[in-house]
């Protein structure tokens, strides 16, 4: 299997008035084709920033401070400012125009809040026309609109509604429109950042199901960013747990839920309610994550970790292979 995405030593920093906050810290990650990776962690752990970095759309004042992001491209992609050759491409080295060509065509991104992700001044149809024509200027408006209608119909939205404006749609429908816009050019990689967080549970289930179908139909590789482990249990093949900008554990979904290795992953799972075990006692994690502007040495989790040792306070644990076949960054497993 080839890697659809390979991230090497990626570091993203936000330059704030108080100092530099390292939101993503030397992350290593590779993702095989046609698999769904869940990226989980609490708010502020850097999961969204990591997703945005893959699009090279880290919000101001953030910037990629180091590392490489490789994506795999099937065919040569023509571009006004230098064609992009097929094969593995380091997108951190591309110019803005090359990056623009890749966005939407190779990598699609679905945002958290569908209520604010569409231009209130444009009809849904115009969103599709602009999207398609931005990548294929030779396609006529009518044809672009027809393609949009087709995609919307597949997602359960009446095609004649292309003349409507975003405010005439419900949240769930808008998110379907966003997914439609993401899928219309058949990208290889789909990153969705909390796509269902602002929706109710029933709509959430429908959307997740539709995304799973799309994944099958279009052989998508997916990254699903969420803090909701329940969503990942249904949809992800593998799960990466992030804490303070670092990946602390990466395992198949089954292994992660059965036998979490990292103390943080274990604690995280204990804090999730389970409908099949109504009597399960929920355990919270004491303390709060450290300040990223003034990071602590060693493992970032050590002040909250029940199994912390002396070495945890001084040395950053490397990401090593775990007993279950995944990866884990914890000194508990380093000794072997």
């Amino acid at each position: 299997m080839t890697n659809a995405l390979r991230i090497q030593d990626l570091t993203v920093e936000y330059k704030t008035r108080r100092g530099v906050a390292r939101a993503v810290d030397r992350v290593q990650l590779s993702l095989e084709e046609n698999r769904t990776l869940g990226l989980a962690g609490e708010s502020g752990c850097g999961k969204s920033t990591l997703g945005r970095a893959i699009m090279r759309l880290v919000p101001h004042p953030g910037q990629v401070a180091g590392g490489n992001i490789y994506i795999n491209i099937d065919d040569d992609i023509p571009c006004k400012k230098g064609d992009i050759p097929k094969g593995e491409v380091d997108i951190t080295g591309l110019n803005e125009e090359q990056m623009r060509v890749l966005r939407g065509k190779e990598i699609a991104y679905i945002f958290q809040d569908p209520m604010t992700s569409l231009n209130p001044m444009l009809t849904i149809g115009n969103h599709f026309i602009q999207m398609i024509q931005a990548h294929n200027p030779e396609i006529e408006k009518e044809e672009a609109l027809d393609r949009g209608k087709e995609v919307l119909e597949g997602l359960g939205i009446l095609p004649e509604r292309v003349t409507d404006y975003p405010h005439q749609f419900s949240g769930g429908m808008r998110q379907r429109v966003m997914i439609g816009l993401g899928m219309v050019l058949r990208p290889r990689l789909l990153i969705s950042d909390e796509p269902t967080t602002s929706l109710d549970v029933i709509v959430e289930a429908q959307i997740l199901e539709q995304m799973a179908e799309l994944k099958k139909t279009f052989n998508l590789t997916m990254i699903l960013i969420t803090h909701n482990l329940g969503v990942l249990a249904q949809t992800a093949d593998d799960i990466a747990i992030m804490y303070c900008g670092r990946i602390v554990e990466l395992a198949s979904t089954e292994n992660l839920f059965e036998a979490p290795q990292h103390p943080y992953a274990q604690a995280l799972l204990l804090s999730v309610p389970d409908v099949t075990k109504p009597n399960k006692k929920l355990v919270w994690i004491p303390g709060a994550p450290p300040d990223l502007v003034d990071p602590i040495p060693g493992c970032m989790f050590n002040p909250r970790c029940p199994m912390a040792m002396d070495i945890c306070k001084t040395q950053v644990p490397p990401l090593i292979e775990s007993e279950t076949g995944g990866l884990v960054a914890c000194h508990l497993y380093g000794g072997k």
Partner: protein
Amino acid sequence: MTLRSYVTSRVLLMIPMVMLLLTLVFVILRVIPGDPALLHFEKGVDPVVLAEFRHRLGLDKPILEQYFDYLVGILRGDFGISMQDYAPISTHLIGRFPATLELSIYSMIFAVLLGLALGVKASKNYDTVTDHSIRLFSIVTYAIPVFFLGMVLQFFFSIWLGWLPTGRRFDAHWMPPPTVTGMYTIDSILAGDLFLLVISVRYLILPTITLGTILCGIFIRLTRTNMLETLRMDFVTAAKARGLSDGTVTYGYALRNAFLPILTMIGIQFAALLAGAILTETTFSWPGLGTYLVDRIGHRDYTAIQGTVVFFGILVSMLTLFVDILYAYLDPRIRL
């Protein structure tokens, strides 16, 4: 609410507003101390002449009857007669208004284009030297008095370089184009006379730049602030993530959504522009309504002042109405 009922309600709302305006002008001109008829003449005027004067202007009638005559007159487009020559004020207004309108339109276009361009540039280069310089420019131009800038430009371009005329509307050696709209540039084009067009443009340049520069500051600030807000919005990032070009995202997404408050400001500033025209027109001896008003005030011609002020007032109300309707046309959320 449909577009039709929206427009109807706006038009109906305008009626009490205009009534209030008419009444206020009428009352203010009558409660200020001094008899308008006496003030008009030198000391020791013959009582017979004075009585005849009052009678011709209708100032001998009871105040309520004067008020009623005044309202009915305005409804019929009759703004009263001038104390100076007993000629209908509407004739003066029609003769002078095109000059003011022409200058106002070009100044507004200049101010809005410059304001939008610099505002967008500043917002896209947020917190850089470019941004700070543009902000400084906007404050300086906003604070600078019209006549000062006008005289500096006159000194530099007319007296020192000798490129442009210092004032007036047209070259005294040539006949202005035949009157159709009264705006010389448009009349020249209608007459198909390039030579006359060049002359009228030459006379327009300095007053337009003066008035436009003074006005553009507020548009720069407004554009910049609103753009900073819309540029951070989800739908802008989402549009970038779909690979839309920088131009489409900046103008079609960010600016288009930032434009409504700017449009309101255009309407409001048009009123300020007409008031500003008084100073600009005086500086450049521009034969418009502004110089007419100043001239009439100098002669204590109360009826003419009343007529001109009412005309300005009605004009501004109509402009506001027009902007409101345009607003609804541009924003689909208001239309519904």
